[in-house]
């Protein structure tokens, strides 16, 4: 397999929060076009792994590559490569991120949320950004809400706007950090529907989730993490149908 086929590659990554060892020698990769779901109990390091990819957290040691380019290389909490701030922001704009708590900009309308970053980061002109923004809102089924402020939208609608906002930067990969965990149960479906559509369109996705149904139906590969380590990975059939490790079996029994 050639190196460039890796959209994400993580090598020997360790992460400490003080004395707490949250990621333990992680090796992890996502191939172009792949949908990878990361599952595991709370506190297993799934979200931290995701957040280390776009510098929202800094790894303590190890290497991170995005689309073949090294974006972080640290040894014992020290940069082992020169970190160029503008390069990091540029790299971030290629990694779309969807947060558990949406993090929409409350002072902007739905359309304003989608067009803000293209306009100020990519200097796209307003007309063009809005045209594309409307297409994206349409693709998440919210073109009628273009002028609503986030406070007036339901959680499910907010998260769909957040997905459109992430897509507006034409990311190479979308990262989802428990995108449905903060939603009322009846609103989960509409968000998963949008994510499914994206997955089938060939988008590379890394999804940290508790939605086992989604992982089973949509993922190309499922990664099970526990206590800061990758315990097991495989196709959904392997993970859900034939779990090997004791911890995965226990976890699946609990989530049934």
């Amino acid at each position: 397999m050639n190196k460039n086929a890796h959209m994400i590659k993580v090598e020997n990554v360790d992460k400490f929060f003080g004395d707490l060892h949250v990621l333990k020698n992680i090796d992890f990769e996502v191939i172009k076009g792949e949908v990878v779901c990361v599952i595991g109990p709370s506190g297993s390091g799934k979200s931290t792994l995701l957040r280390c990819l776009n510098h929202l957290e800094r790894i303590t040691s190890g290497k991170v590559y995005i689309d073949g380019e090294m974006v972080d290389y640290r040894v014992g909490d020290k940069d082992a490569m020169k970190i160029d701030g503008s390069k990091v922001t540029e790299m971030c704009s290629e990694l779309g991120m969807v947060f558990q708590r949406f993090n929409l900009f409350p002072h902007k309308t739905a359309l304003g949320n989608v067009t803000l970053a293209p306009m100020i980061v990519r200097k796209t002109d307003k007309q063009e950004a809005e045209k594309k923004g409307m297409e994206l809102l349409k693709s998440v089924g919210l073109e009628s809400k273009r002028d609503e402020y986030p406070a007036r939208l339901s959680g499910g609608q907010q998260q769909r706007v957040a997905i459109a906002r992430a897509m507006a930067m034409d990311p190479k990969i979308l990262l989802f950090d428990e995108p449905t965990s903060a939603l009322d149960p009846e609103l989960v479906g509409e968000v998963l529907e949008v994510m499914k559509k994206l997955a089938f369109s060939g988008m590379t996705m890394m999804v940290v989730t508790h939605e086992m149904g989604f992982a089973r139906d949509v993922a190309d590969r499922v990664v099970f993490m526990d206590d800061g380590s990758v315990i097991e990975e495989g196709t959904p059939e392997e993970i859900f149908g034939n779990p090997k490790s004791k911890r995965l079996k226990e976890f699946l029994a609990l989530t049934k």
Partner: protein
Amino acid sequence: MNLNMLLLLNEGGKLYQWLDSYVNMTKVSVFARGTLVTLELTLLSMLLGTVLGMLIALGRISRNKILKTVTWVYVWIFRGTPLLLQILIVYLAIPLMYMDFTGMPLRIDPFMAAIFALMLNTAAYLAEIFRAGILSIDKGQLEASKALGMSYTQAMTKVIIPQSVSRVIPPYSNEFIMILKDTSLTSVIGITELYREASRLASGTGDWRMVFIAAGVYLFLTTISTFVFSKVEKRTSRYL
């Protein structure tokens, strides 16, 4: 500014004389003049203080150790010493110091000195208000901005600061009122603003009512300001 023009009154004119038969127009003019000076002092020092306060707030929350320390010391000094003394330092002590060191005289216009001292003082308080406003914004907003590829400056100017405006207005309004009242302290360096005009009238004519009229004017100004700020607050938080 010619105040008689402003009031559309001419001292010798008919209207003036007619009004003068009901109220003492000389006293009214004096009060109006003092009120204008008070307003000028307030507005100018708040305007300049807002800019300086914002810069200091950004310094306070920056990760640069030197900036952090310098701005911390600034706030420490200006909040920890009396405004009255700060006014004297700017107007009196600094020119004398300059003279001691260089042997050359330095003349500072009292009005400029007053504005400058008020600005320096309010900037320290405003910096803390702005800092609290910025820190009160959920950190998910900065993360979302970063994840979309915005630089720190872009995230601040387009996402964080716009959201903090409506939260900052109530304490800002409070500081505005404080400065409005504290402009009276500039009378010590000879600024004839509202307080000084009133006290001169009162002691000159023995008319004790002058003091209460001044109080009424201050109350009127602070009430109007509070009203305006609460309107602005409503406007800026429409999206919530």
